């Protein structure tokens, strides 16, 4: 008798288990279409779902109820995806800063060398655009000393180089940050 009921129980269990697996598979498919969720996060969430199902089963709920409750406690997958998307804002800012710094080093150095080259070519057509492009850096740096200061000394040249590097890295940072903000605004869906 005990054997028989156990056997019956087993049959029922395998039958419901089959349904449970199908339900989990459906849930996984819904999970897979969520943007912003990496494969690792999806795996984590699935483990969580399975743990939660086991937890409810232990409390005596049947497979279907356990699955339903587990889904409910995990919450809206779309909402989780949204939250993960917001996580990304910071690394983007960091990227913008990194972009700015790299951009600044390269552009600052290039501009500095162009400046040196132009210094030996008075009357060049490039002087005017160069001064215009670097006006803030040159203008602010030139205020540091009076007119008799020798900008071609080591100290003078390093001050100019520093000014160019700072100016261009600032520009790089601002453009990186600006494009980030634009992208954010474009991607953010309207709140309902």
């Amino acid at each position: 008798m005990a054997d028989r009921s156990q056997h019956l129980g087993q049959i029922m269990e395998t039958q419901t288990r089959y349904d449970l697996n199908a339900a989990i598979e459906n849930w996984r498919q819904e999970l897979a279409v969520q943007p912003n969720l990496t494969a690792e996060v999806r795996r984590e969430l699935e483990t969580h779902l399975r743990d939660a199902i086991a937890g409810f089963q232990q409390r005596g709920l049947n497979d279907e109820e356990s699955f339903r409750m587990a889904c409910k406690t995990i919450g809206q997958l779309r909402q989780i995806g949204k939250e993960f998307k917001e996580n990304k804002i910071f690394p983007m800012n960091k990227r913008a800063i990194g972009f700015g710094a790299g951009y600044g080093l390269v552009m600052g150095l290039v501009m500095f060398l162009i400046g040196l080259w132009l210094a030996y070519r008075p009357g060049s057509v490039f002087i005017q655009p160069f001064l215009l492009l670097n006006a803030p850096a040159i203008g602010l740096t030139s205020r540091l000393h009076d007119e008799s200061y020798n900008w071609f000394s080591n100290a003078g040249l390093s001050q100019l180089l520093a000014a160019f590097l700072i100016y261009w890295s600032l520009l790089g940072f601002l453009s990186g940050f600006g494009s980030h903000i634009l992208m954010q605004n474009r991607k953010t869906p309207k709140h309902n």
Partner: protein
Amino acid sequence: MYKTAMLTKDLVAASSKPLLLSILAGGESYGYEIIQKVRELSGGQIEWSDGMLYPVLHRLERDGLIESEWKEADTGRQRKYYFISSDGRKVLKTERQQWLTVHNTLGKLWKHKPVTI
């Protein structure tokens, strides 16, 4: 009998960091276990939507406050375990001081009026 209100959304958001860091300071853990622990310790008053735990955990990991590792549990199921980093311990210390400041200030204000929540 007294009735307690559920934590507001703002409070849940603000307290999640010290809660998670404190739990992990007591030993490594994984998402499901962390949720169970919070539920148990708060007497069910702090109810997180389970899935929302993961963005927070990943944020803490990104900020270097916790670290993680996939490991096989006794059941044979692979789980992602989280543990606190040394930076996390430092942040927890400041968080702790700040929450205690709030707690003590409110405690002084309410001293003569026992509060039934």
